[in-house]
Each structure stands twice: as C-alpha cells, then as structure tokens.
C-alpha cells in the first residue's frame, strides 16, 4: 500500500473521529467563552441527544431497566433517522435554554468550582436516570439504511459510508454556526462578549438574550453529535461522560471561545489518534516492529500537554483571556 493512500486513510479516519469532538467542543467553547460557565454536563446533553435520537429513529427493545419492568419492552417512534436529525437538536436546544435559565444562571455569581460541582452532579444524575430507565445494557443504534455499508473510494478502498456522512454533516453544521457567529449582529455580540463581557455591558447591549441562545446552540450541537455519533458505536449510559474529556481537551488545544480553534483542535486530536493507531515503527535491520496503537489515547493528552506548555492560551486563543 502506498504512502499516499496510507495518509489518505489516516486523514479520513482522523476527520471522522475529530468530527464528534468538534461538535461537542464548539458548544463547550462558546459557552465557556461567553458565559464563563464550565459545563461538565455537556456530555450528558450528548447522552440525551443520543437516546432521544435512538427512540425517535427506530423501535428499540430494552431488556432491562424500569421501563421494561413496567411493561414497555419495546419503545421508540420508528420515524427514521432524518426525523431524529431534525427533532433532536430542537429538543436539546430547548433543554439547553432551560438549563441556562434554571441551572447556569443562579450559578453565574458562584465560584467556578461550584459550577463544575453542580454540572458534574447533574451529569451523574442524567447518566443514572438513563440507566434506571433503560438499563445499563448496550443498545444497537442502527445506521440509516441509506447510508449503511461501505463505499468504494479511490486510493482507500472500502470505507463505511456513514462515517463520510458524519464528516459531511459536521462540516455543514460548523459552517452554519460559524456564519452565524461571524456574520450576524447576534454573532457580533457573542464575539464581543467572548473577549470582554463587561465592556459589552458598558456599551449598553443586553447580552442576556443572546447568551441564552448561545447556551441553546451549544446544547443542540451536543445533541446532534449524539445522533450522528450514536450509530458509530454501541449505545450505553456511560458514553456521555466518556466523550467529555476529549471534548474538553479539544477546547484547551484550540483556544477558548474560538470556533476555528475547536475545529482545529478536533482535527488535531482525531488525526493524532488515527495516526498512532496505524503507525508502526519498523526497522528491519534492528528487528524493531513496534505498533503505537496502545499509545493512541495517551497521544491526544500528550499533545494537549505540549501545546499547553508552549502556548497556554491554546492554538487560536487570544492572549487577553485572563481567567
């Protein structure tokens, strides 16, 4: 296999892995940037989006959990994947707004640690509610039939179609959010707020409304990530917390409040992971053949550590950001 096709494969796999990180990181990053609110429950929004997507798109049999014990063995609307892709973001958007109003707002004036503790507690509660209702067993989130199976690509050969869709859907969503932030008045307020909340308030702009929307958009992106990411893996209640850490790392690498930073961070992480998985150090003359796959998870944190040492504000973060 040629070097070019190897590289293409690493790139494509990296893009797909990174795409989910990006979707979560954008939300985390703009909420952190504008509202200075650390949301450890962001993974829970992903989890909720995922289960909502599962129930909207297909009928699912739950063999355990309270719902099954109450006689709801098979639940779900079976409306298909597109329905989930439309309904879930709206649903989680509303959830995000409610969260801003009832969870975040009373805590804006409390110390950062209290915000983290609260959202961490909520993440546990969300995960446990899902577990109690649907059981901890794993579920199958089927890929939409129109995107199942492999696609023959030049250079690479067979590649799962759904992964290409994940990359595509993510790209479209990122562009929409980017345009919204970059080219609208709403976006201007948000961007200004990211840099200096007090200044924007001094200018007499009511920022509470745009901020609510920011929270909603961030949440909706996490929900969408759940829907598009669900079919990639088996579904269970721990996926929300599992994805949170790489999403945070993405923000740290990319820089606070920067959408471009989140995208860059996600790509770096995804490609690092995919590169390490596929890279083996082979020196036949010395008899060395060491695969780096076991280091793939370590690698993404090592990258974060290096970037942090060299450029503490993140790759595209601004220097004025004083904590």
């Amino acid at each position: 296999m040629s070097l070019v096709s190897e590289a293409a494969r690493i790139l494509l796999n990296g893009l797909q892995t990174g795409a989910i990180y990006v979707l979560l990181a954008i939300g985390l990053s703009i909420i952190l940037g504008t509202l200075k609110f650390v949301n450890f429950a962001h993974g829970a929004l992903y989890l909720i989006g995922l289960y909502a997507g599962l129930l909207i798109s297909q009928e699912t049999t739950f063999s355990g959990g309270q719902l099954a014990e109450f006689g709801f063995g098979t639940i779900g609307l079976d409306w298909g994947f597109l329905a989930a892709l439309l309904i879930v973001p709206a649903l989680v958007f509303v959830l995000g707004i409610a969260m801003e109003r009832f969870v975040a707002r009373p805590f804006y004036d409390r110390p950062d640690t209290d915000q983290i503790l609260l959202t961490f507690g909520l993440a546990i509660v969300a995960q446990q509610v899902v577990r109690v209702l649907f059981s901890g067993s794993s579920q199958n989130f089927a890929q939409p039939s129109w995107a199942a199976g492999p696609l023959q690509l030049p250079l690479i050969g067979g590649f799962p179609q759904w992964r290409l869709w994940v990359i595509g859907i993510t790209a479209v969503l990122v562009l929409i959010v980017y345009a919204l932030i970059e080219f609208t008045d709403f976006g201007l307020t948000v961007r200004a707020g990211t840099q200096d909340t007090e200044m924007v308030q001094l200018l007499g702009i009511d920022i509470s409304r745009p901020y609510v929307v920011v929270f909603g958009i961030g949440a909706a992106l996490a929900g969408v990530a759940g829907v598009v990411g669900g079919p990639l893996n088996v579904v269970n209640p721990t996926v929300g917390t599992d994805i949170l850490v790489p999403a945070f790392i993405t923000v740290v690498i990319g820089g606070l409040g920067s959408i471009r930073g989140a995208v860059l961070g996600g790509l770096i992480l995804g490609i690092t992971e995919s590169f390490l998985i596929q890279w083996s150090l082979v020196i036949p003359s010395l008899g060395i053949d060491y695969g780096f796959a076991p280091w793939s998870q370590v690698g993404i944190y090592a990258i974060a550590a290096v970037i942090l040492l060299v450029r503490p504000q993140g790759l595209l973060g601004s220097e004025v950001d004083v904590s």
Partner: protein
Amino acid sequence: MSDESANPTDAPETEADGGKTLGGSASENTVTRLRTRWEGARDREVTVIGLTIVGVAVFPYLFARAPVVSDLLQGYQELASLMLVWGIFAIGFDILLGRTGLLSFGHAALWGTGAYAAGWASANITEFPLLVVLIGVSVTVVLSVVLGFLSLRRGGIYFAILTLAFAQMIYYMASAPLSFITGGDNGFTGVEIGSFLGVFDLGTELPSIAGTLIGTWRYAFIGAFLVFSVAAIHRVLNSPYGIVFRAIRENEQRAQFVGFNVWRYKLAAFVLSGTFAGLAGALFTIHGQYVPLSSLYWQTSGEVVIMTVLGGVGSLLGPLFGAGIYLWVEYIVSGGYPFEWIAPYWLLVLGLVFVSVVVLFPEGVWGLVGDLRRRVATRLEEQ
C-alpha cells in the same frame, strides 16, 4: 455513620478562632461555662488528636460488632478500614478544594500511583508495610509536582479540566502501554505485604479488649496513619500556609498584592493534597493487597470530590464523614439487604443528594451537624 461516632466529630474547627467571643460573656449558666471551656479546648492540637484517636479506636466496634448499632448499619471490619483509607484521601483532598478553592478532577492519578507504586514495591523491593507506604508516598509526591506544575499553567476553570485530562492520560498509559508493569486490565495481582515490624501479621486480631474494639492489626496500622494525617493537616492549617490558602480561595489577586507567591502556594497545596492521596493509595494496597486499574480512572477522582463535598468542604473532619457516608451507601446500601428498595438507585440517590448539597448546603453534612449543634447549644443556654 451516625450519632454514635459524633464525639470525635465535635472536635475540630481548625482555624485559629480561639479569640472568638462566645455568646454572652456573662456565664452564670453552667452549660455556657462548660461550652466556653469546650470551645477553648477543642482547637488545641492535643484535643483534636486525642478525640480522633478515640473515634478511630471505637469505630470498628460500633460499626461491625456492637449490638443494635451494627445491626442498623450492617457494617463489617474490612469496610471500617476502607473508610479510613478513603477518609485520608478526602481530608487531604480538602486542603486543595476546601482551603485553597482549587477543584482537581485528577486525584485518581495520585491515589492510583500511590497504590501501584506501593504494590510494585511490595512485589519487588520490600514486604515491610511501612517501607511500602513510604515508597508509595514518595513516588506520588514526585508525580504531584509534575502534574501540579502542568495543570497550574492555566488558572481558574482550566485547572479542573487539565487535572482531569492528565489523569486520564496516566490511566491510559497504565491500561495498555505500561501493562507489563501494571497488569493492565487485570490490575496488579502480585502484592506481597509482610508483617508489621516483622512481628505482627496485619490480618490478625489485636490482643484482648483492643481486638474487640479495633479488630485487626491492619485496621490499627491504617488508623495510625489516619491520626497522623489529621494531626499533620491540622498543623498545616495552623501554619502560615493555612491562612494563605484561605486568602487565595477568597481573593486570589489580593493575596498576590500583599506579597504572596500565589502560584507556588497553589502548587504547594496540590502537592500536599497529593501526598495524602498517595498515602491513602498506598494504604489501599495494604488493605486490599490488589491494585485495580480503575483506581486511576476519572471516576475515582469524581468519588473523592463527592465525598469531600458531601461531608463538608473546608472542615477538617467533614470529608472523613463524607467518605464514610459514600462508602456506606456504595457498599452496604447498594448490596441489597436490608435496602433492596433503594439498592439499584444508590448512585442516582447519591447524585441527587450531591446536587442538593451543592445548591442548598454548601457546607455539607458537617455544616448541617454544626448548625444543629449550635442551635441545641443556644437552646440550652436560653434555658
């Protein structure tokens, strides 16, 4: 953990508030007089240590063997030891969270490193429990300097995220690339703990009445470290560090402007709490003679956070009680009898309790007990 061990719990509010004016100075009332004397005595190091020793000594009896009480609690000896181990972890963690105001989500890395280092040392260097603990702690101190240095590169909200991230990195290293040392997913199975001072097998019972009260040498060994930890932390909190930590928590910029090197104090707080995390981790190995991979996983960090907050941040012994409550729910309530009705929901219940503590009772169970005590005291004085 309930009333029966309330005695030692009454002891310590550590800050130097000896000069606090108490109630009315006209103390005709005996209760008031006694209380005044108590308030004066309770901060003294000797009092704190003495009461901790008494509490540690009677706890296993009450928890696992005493009539009625132990039936109610459904406790057992080994869980009593484990509660002390986690208690050390939690009171050390509170140096960072409660005193300095820094929330670390990466203490699993320190606890786990202490546990693995102790386990590895026991298999490869020495079987003597004291040396095993010493090695576990030393390795952890080195790691906490490195982790603290990296994580404190960014202030505020980043700290929690960075500690979490670096701890996960260590977890992943132990899980695969370094599994030739750690045993990977199987955990470290080769722990060999010898007898204490070459004489007392830690698994055996203490002689006579001490055996009835305290139980095993292992518990006594761990209990001694708990007392040492309480004394040491009490000392730290009454040293210049104690007040500088609080200053940093309350107003970091101001602390800097009166001339403190805030960054170094934060690192010091991190390393101090890491030292106790490592000690607890090493004792965890002594206790279980096995190191699970999950000791490095971020859920372990989450557990110590919950314990500390539940028990009461910023109080010397609150986190110890938080640890006790958490483990009691995790081990006894989750195990069914006589809690079948709630057993499957134990973590959900703990999560909800945790959230309500954060929102409504930031001082935790310890704060509630304190409020209650003050209210009763006031009531008594009024009579």
